[in-house]
């Protein structure tokens, strides 16, 4: 592999890793930080993509569609937390598995009823539809660079919020001992509603910005679900930095193994995770 | 004083947490049929010492000798098998099991057969007896069938000791057994420890000075991970360094 090709592949890996982080960011928040086992995370990603498709077609503007979809997702998150998740905080964690699997079923059914089963596509918005030629063979689409930039912004924003602000401390404290946080005069229920909704919105945003790059199809949520969990766990529960590093690792390892070790590339992210967990049983950056 | 057998011994024991020297160069000797009190300001490393003695932590440096054998590198569960039993500072019981069951679990270690999948857990009389005895000793017999999570905090502390007793230890490491207990219960524990120390080697970490002074045959004071003094109660009580670092002057409320 010559050096330019290596650099390209590295770039592919980083870009994929950043996208993975974006998709996993909501899960990092809801699962990693808040400790809610939300298996319907992938469904939220799917909902985001479908909403983006729907509103792009009806409004004609991707930017507008993105805003509307993100707001709908936020409201959806509030609704789900208020009506369902809130009843499970004091119960066995595994009840959350059952509940959110129920949610996956419901979302899949609704998707099929509302939008049908055909693969759908969203066009890249015109103002981002350029490409930067890198060699005489390959060019790099502006939109993907834009998405990478967005991912980095979200990563920094999340890191600062969770680790540096009082809000972040309260969120983490809530995961550890809800009652005690409430005893400090904090409306933990509202706080958690908002954080959960933010997590849902992040998943949906990932779906929205992915929509022009991928095909919007049934089951797209389930495909990303496992990767998201892998990212969060490799990084260590509750660590934004960990999730970020984990996502990049997965992205890069996956990219290079696809090319260099095609026989086992399908297993590669699992091998990576297993190795990380054997060396550090609580992930890379768990405290 | 030092006429009884040496059971447990530490040699230049150290435990560092990053840069923090929670325990620094500690050499102590614990004798059979004696109660060895350990006191010191908060964060002095008392719990750390107990954790090292029962294998929960492994030392950064130094040695632990049990009846002359070095045991600092054996597995945590093997400490208990050697008869080193331990009560925790934070109540640590099986909350959903009954008090009796809590003790039965402990007693079964000694009776054996824990990998037997054919023997009913309730069939063994001996085991139940041992568990009941343990409850009896700490004065919890009347709570035999109460679920552990539903008894009060003080009672849970009693249960904690009972659990350790049920393993029939020869060394008893107790971390603030009296904390959170009422006078009566404390008194009960003090009486209990008095009897127990006739048979066991007891290492007691406690902030209840009355109890410590009353019970200890030997008393060690630690400050900031370091050994300050080990001597009889009277000697220690009057040591000016101890007053300064730990007890303070005179009455508690000035």
């Amino acid at each position, binding site marked *: 592999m010559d050096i330019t090709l290596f650099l390209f592949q590295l770039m592919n890996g980083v870009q994929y890793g950043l996208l993975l982080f974006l998709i996993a960011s909501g899960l990092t928040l809801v699962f990693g930080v808040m400790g809610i*086992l939300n298996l319907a995370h992938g469904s939220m990603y799917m909902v985001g993509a479908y909403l983006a498709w729907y509103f792009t077609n009806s409004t004609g503007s991707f930017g507008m569609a993105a805003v509307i979809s993100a707001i709908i997702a936020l409201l959806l998150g509030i609704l789900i937390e208020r009506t*369902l998740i809130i*009843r*499970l905080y004091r*119960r*066995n964690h*595994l*009840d959350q*598995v*059952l*509940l959110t*699997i*129920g*949610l*996956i*079923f*419901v979302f899949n*059914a*609704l998707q099929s009823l509302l939008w049908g089963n055909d693969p759908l596509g969203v066009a890249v918005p015109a103002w981002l539809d350029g490409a930067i030629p890198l060699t005489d063979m390959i060019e790099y689409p502006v939109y993907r660079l834009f998405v990478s930039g967005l991912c980095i912004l979200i990563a920094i924003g999340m890191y600062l919020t969770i680790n540096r602000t009082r809000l972040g401390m309260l969120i983490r404290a809530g995961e550890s001992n809800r009652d005690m946080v409430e005893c400090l005069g904090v409306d933990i229920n509202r706080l958690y509603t908002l954080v959960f909704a933010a997590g849902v919105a992040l998943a949906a945003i990932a779906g929205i910005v992915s929509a022009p790059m991928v095909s919007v199809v049934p089951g797209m949520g389930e495909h990303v679900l496992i990767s998201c*969990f*892998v990212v969060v*766990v490799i990084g260590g*529960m509750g660590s934004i930095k960990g999730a970020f590093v984990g996502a990049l690792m997965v992205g890069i390892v996956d990219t290079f193994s696809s090319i260099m070790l095609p026989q086992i590339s*399908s*297993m590669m992210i*699992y091998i990576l995770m*297993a190795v990380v*967990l*054997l060396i550090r*049983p*609580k992930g890379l950056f768990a405290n | 004083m030092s006429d009884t057998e040496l059971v447990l011994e530490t040699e230049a024991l150290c435990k560092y947490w990053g840069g923090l020297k929670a325990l620094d160069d500690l050499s102590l000797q614990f004798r059979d049929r004696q109660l060895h009190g350990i006191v010191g300001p908060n964060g002095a490393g008392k719990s750390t010492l107990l954790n090292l003695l*029962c294998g*929960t932590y492994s030392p950064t440096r130094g040695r632990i000798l049990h009846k002359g054998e070095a045991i600092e590198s054996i*597995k*945590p*569960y*093997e400490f*208990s098998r050697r008869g080193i*039993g*331990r009560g925790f500072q934070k109540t*640590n*019981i*099986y*909350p*959903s*099991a009954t008090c009796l*069951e809590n003790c039965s*679990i*402990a007693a*079964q*270690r000694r009776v054996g*057969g*824990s*990998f037997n*999948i*054919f*023997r009913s*857990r309730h069939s063994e009389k001996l085991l139940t007896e041992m568990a009941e005895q343990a409850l009896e000793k700490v004065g919890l017999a009347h709570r035999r069938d109460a679920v552990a999570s539903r008894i009060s905090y003080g009672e849970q502390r009693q249960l904690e000791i009972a*659990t350790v007793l049920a*393993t029939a230890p020869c060394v008893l490491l107790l971390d603030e057994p009296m904390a959170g207990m009422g006078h009566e219960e404390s008194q009960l524990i003090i009486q209990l420890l008095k009897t127990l120390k006739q048979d066991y080697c007891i290492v007691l970490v406690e902030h209840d000075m009355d109890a410590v002074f009353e019970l200890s045959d030997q008393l060690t004071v630690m400050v900031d991970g370091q050994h300050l003094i080990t001597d009889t109660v009277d000697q220690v009580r009057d040591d000016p360094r101890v007053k300064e670092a730990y007890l303070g002057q005179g009455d508690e409320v000035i």
Partner: protein
Amino acid sequence: MFTNRAEKLFVWVFFPLALLMPLLLDQNTYYVNKLATILILSIFVMSLDYLVGRCGLVTLGHALFYGMGGYLFVMLAPEYEAVNFWIYTFYVLAISSVVALIVGFIVLRTSGIYMIMITLALAQMCFYFFSDSTEFGGNDGVFIYVKPETSVFGLNLFDLDNPTHFYYLCLLSLFNCLLFFKLIMRSKFGRIVDAVQENPERTTALGYNVFHFRLASYVIASALGAYAGYLFALQYGFVNPSMLSWQTSGTALVMSILGGLGTLYGAILGTLVYEGLHYGFEHLTENWLLPMGVLIILMVLAFRHGLAGYLESLLEKRK
């Protein structure tokens, strides 16, 4: 043995009814087969329930053993020759135990979500191995052409090609499995298993090697999971990598939570209800996912401890 009232009731209703079922169904091949599948799944779910509910070891890789049960037979048995069922049962149990011992050695170093993920990782690796393999049929799966015969000392008890016989074999297996787990939980070993789940730190301090107890439980549950997979493979003579997929593990987990974690008989209840609903809705509407999902959600909200918990509270009220 069955001390809990709800459990007693369930066992007394379920097993006699299950015994009569093939007669009631007039030996309709499909229904008998379908019920046998549910019984097999119940074994699988029960072994998972023991692991998750009784040992506190949550795994999302239990399908590894389910699939292994099937593939072991494919790999070991000659293609066109009937082998002995009991001998191969032994092989399957023995080999999967050894594998479980090794896998357990790795995965039990972690706990909680990390264990969930590492079990998932190992199962997925195995899934891709068989999926990408050329010799074991790859993605499309393999056929078992000849079913084993079941003679013991010349006595042929079950004809595996006969659905009714096969059904009774499954029922017998399930009953034994339940009995076996009850025996374990009642035993002195079970006491420590309970203790380890509730407070591993305390249990270590009492001198038990927690790791050994977990490993033993892991091996037991995995071997029985493999046995279920072996039965499943024999039922239609078809083995596919999807048996190893995480969805298989996930569905089993769902069934066991639905049934009531750690109750063991709840595993049967959960499987029965889940499969029943699936069957019902699937025949009712093409959008069966919707009512199914809604009902699952409602059940989680309504039942604190799964169906078994609900049954128990019903009996409690009547008392």
